[in-house]
């Protein structure tokens, strides 16, 4: 064992020994002083510590808030419209529960201090009082109705159907990474089947190339490109185990379940560039974090979201080569041109597979 370990163990052992000796000694002192006297003394000390704990605790809460609030997402605007609703729900809940928290905690420790044992006091025989009990059944019930009301109002807005014009994107999780697919110009995804997955042939999604709709599909692992101000509908899949598309800045999250497609939609509000200005952080990126335990690489399952303007998006998409053409380079019109110069007049053969 290393010396530090031995040192630590020695300190620990010494600490125990000292505590134990003190504990033992105080027990003997207690016996000498008389049980009653030592009880009264320790009772006073502990009662006093109860208020000390309350006061230091309240200060601690404030201090903790000062230190860490600025490191959360809440000081910055939400990157999505849904996130704004979630943020306002958060503040409503913090307000209501906060009031309850401070009232009950203060009462608890204050009562503990105030009603500490004293020979002069007799405890009150007070077994029940229906009015009080009705009061603290109805008040929480009303508060909860408010919370449920707001909560469900937002919940239905967030989980409602995506608008027709929404951008379509498909996100597929696998151990341990994300694959994104755009349906291309026809706005329809080509069919896929998991038994068709063929990593060595550039087909990590198992797309059926004989489905014509697949020919313009863009598959990438680089980043998830989204457009500012345009709603996006994300269709979520998993290839192996359950993952979760976690988008902390957008306050959104949805599981990726093998065999069961899921969806989420929202509207990005700020481009990555804008968010860099808002947060004052030039390296800012929207990240996708896997939020469902998916194996030993779970913690490394990182993706990046780039929110761009409409024109930037069009440019980006134009630069992407359809996956079909990467799999069948000979059917790529840009390659064809080179062929055309030698063999004039021969039109590229229609993809065989397309005839189903």
């Amino acid at each position, binding site marked *: 064992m290393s010396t530090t370990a031995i040192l630590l163990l020695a300190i620990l052992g010494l600490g125990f020994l000292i505590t134990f000796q003190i*504990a033992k000694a105080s027990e003997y002192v207690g016996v000498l002083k008389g049980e009653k006297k030592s009880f009264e003394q320790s009772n006073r000390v502990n009662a006093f510590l109860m208020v000390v704990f309350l006061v230091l605790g309240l200060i601690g809460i404030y201090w903790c808030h000062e230190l860490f*609030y600025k490191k*959360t997402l809440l000081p910055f605007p939400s990157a999505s419209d849904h996130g704004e609703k979630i943020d306002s729900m958060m503040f409503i809940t913090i307000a209501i529960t906060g009031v309850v928290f401070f009232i*009950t905690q203060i009462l608890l420790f204050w009562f503990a201090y105030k009603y500490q044992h004293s020979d002069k006091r007799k405890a009150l*025989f007070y*077994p029940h009082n229906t009015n009080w009990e009705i009061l603290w059944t109805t008040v929480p019930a009303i508060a909860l109705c408010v919370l449920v009301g707001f909560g469900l109002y937002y*919940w239905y807005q967030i989980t409602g159907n995506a608008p027709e014009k929404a951008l379509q994107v498909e996100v597929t999780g696998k151990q341990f990474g994300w694959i994104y697919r755009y349906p291309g110009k026809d706005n329809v995804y080509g069919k896929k089947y998991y038994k068709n997955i063929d990593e060595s042939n550039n087909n990590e999604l198992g797309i059926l190339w004989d489905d014509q709709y697949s020919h313009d599909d863009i598959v990438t692992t680089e980043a998830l490109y989204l457009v500012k101000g345009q709603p996006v509908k994300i269709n979520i899949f998993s290839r192996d185990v359950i993952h979760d598309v976690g988008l*902390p800045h957008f306050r959104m999250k949805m599981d990726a379940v093998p065999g069961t497609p*899921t969806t989420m939609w929202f509207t990005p509000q700020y481009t990555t560039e804008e968010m860099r200005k808002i947060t004052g952080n030039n390296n800012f990126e929207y990240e996708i974090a896997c939020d469902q335990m998916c194996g030993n690489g779970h913690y490394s399952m990182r993706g990046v979201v780039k929110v761009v303007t409409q024109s930037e998006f069009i440019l980006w998409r134009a630069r992407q080569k359809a996956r079909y053409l990467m799999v069948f380079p000979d059917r790529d019109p840009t390659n064809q041109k080179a062929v055309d110069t030698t063999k004039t007049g021969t039109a590229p053969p229609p993809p065989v597979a397309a005839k189903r």
Partner: protein
Amino acid sequence: MSNEATHGHPEVVTTHEAHHDEHHVHHHKETFITKYVFSQDHKMIARQFLITGMAWAIIGGLMSVLFRLQLGYPDQSFPFLEDILGRWAKDGKITAESYYALVTMHGTVLVFFVLTGGLSGTFANFLIPLQIGARDMASPFLNMLSYWFFFIASVIMFSSLFVQTGPFSGGWTAYPPLSALGEASPGSKVGMDLWITSMALFVVSSLLGGLNYIATILNMRTKGMSMTRMPLTIWALFFTAVLGVLSFPVLLSGFILLLFDRHAGTSFYLDSIYIGSAALPNEGGSAILYQHLFWFLGHPEVYIIILPAMGIVSEVMSVNARKPIFGYMAMVGSLFAIAILAFLVWAHHMFVTGMNPFLGSVFVLLTLLIAIPSAIKVFNWLTTIWRGNIRFTPGMMFSLGFVSLFISGGLTGIFLGNSALDIALHDTYFVIAHFHIVMGVAGFFGMFAGIYHWFPKMFGRFLNNTMAYIHFWVTLIGSYLIFWPMHYEGLAGMPRRYLDYTNWLSFNQFDGLNKFISTVAMVVFAVQLMFIFNFFYSIFKGRRVTVKNPWGSSTLEWTTPIVAGHGNWPGEIPEVHRWAYDYSKDGREYISQTEPVTPDEKPH
């Protein structure tokens, strides 16, 4: 173990008690084996559960210290770890495999083996016969079996730590397909088979215990002990047993289907999976089905943990505030409401699995309803100490701490139960903070309250008070220091179950905090070791109990001899004439349940 501590006659026992001990009811020759190993005495079984639970608590706690070391100091290596863990900590760094194995085992062990087996097993066994006035459980034999199933389950779970491919490492909830496929994770190979086997035996143990508790409470109450005269501990343990009996079988069925998927080629949970460079043949299953089965137990399970703690706290608080528990019937009613609702909210763990939004909204409503009985309990506890005459015994302090923690953690449940907010908070550190405060730490506080309060009854001696007070204050302060700031990490979206956050732009701002949390966790753990020391030291060397009823309590267990033999009461079982909470009534400190009501007594 010293014979004297558990059965013999401490010098101080007053004469008439000492005599009876000799000819108690089940008098027969006891050997070491029948007395300490295959004992059928509920008090001994309780102590067996307690000590096994404590062993697991040390193991589970040590695991958390190890993985906190990784979380707090991700860029450092600790050569001594390699000495302890071998290949699990190559070059003194916890590997991903071992990190996930540790996290998973930590959760499994603490939720099931400590806070279910250790907590219910100890206090249901110990208190039910003593507090309702019975000589033992309805079936002492099944009761013994319940412990031994727990023991075998423990051995198997422990052995899984040593298999070549490691113990199960997919999280204590064991969601398939990760838990179903060996290709998905090395821990899902043999480790998972051992995990399932162990858990299945654990379920058997819980069922044997639970049925016994229910049968005993319903049938074996002494004369005069009507249901509404029972101490709240018994009510709580009763509802706990009902929850367990109704929900554990569902978990078992979920595990059996999982076992089929693993070994029999079925597709209950598997569909369209490509893993390990091959497509699996399984199609048509639903991975979400498992989550429904799991959480149908999983949610009641959290109440299986907290209800006994609530019962203990109610009892200990009333005794030491020298006041009746406020609103006894409301306390029973809220336990009942919680028990019913516990079955109707499970899907709040699944808001973002793609479930139908309407279904989700039903679960939001039902989930938030639980906050109402919870609020009633909190306010009733507050009123119980109001105008009391509080003795800060260690048990009382842990009870007060419990209420504080239950408030803090219960309120964050209201965030999570609101599905809209859960979209942002699910599987972040906010959830970790929530359930550690409301279940983990609060559950332990209930257990500590119970141990400090009933230790004199269990072992005829007191625990050392000074160590107890240090234990309390360090644990309370430490727990808040550890878990309170985690809410902020959750509000930053920081996901749970990550080995390392340094490569994440969004989550790496908490490195200082993570170090701080890890350091506090180690201190708190060290103080728990001190408690363990206090516990075993005091069994043999603690201050002796010199009176039958050291806390001045009105319940039946304190009418037994200081060290009660098998059968509990040397003579007749006492008859009960009143409820359990006549404290400070008519100017008297307390009135034992065995005391007849006098005609001029004020009814309450």
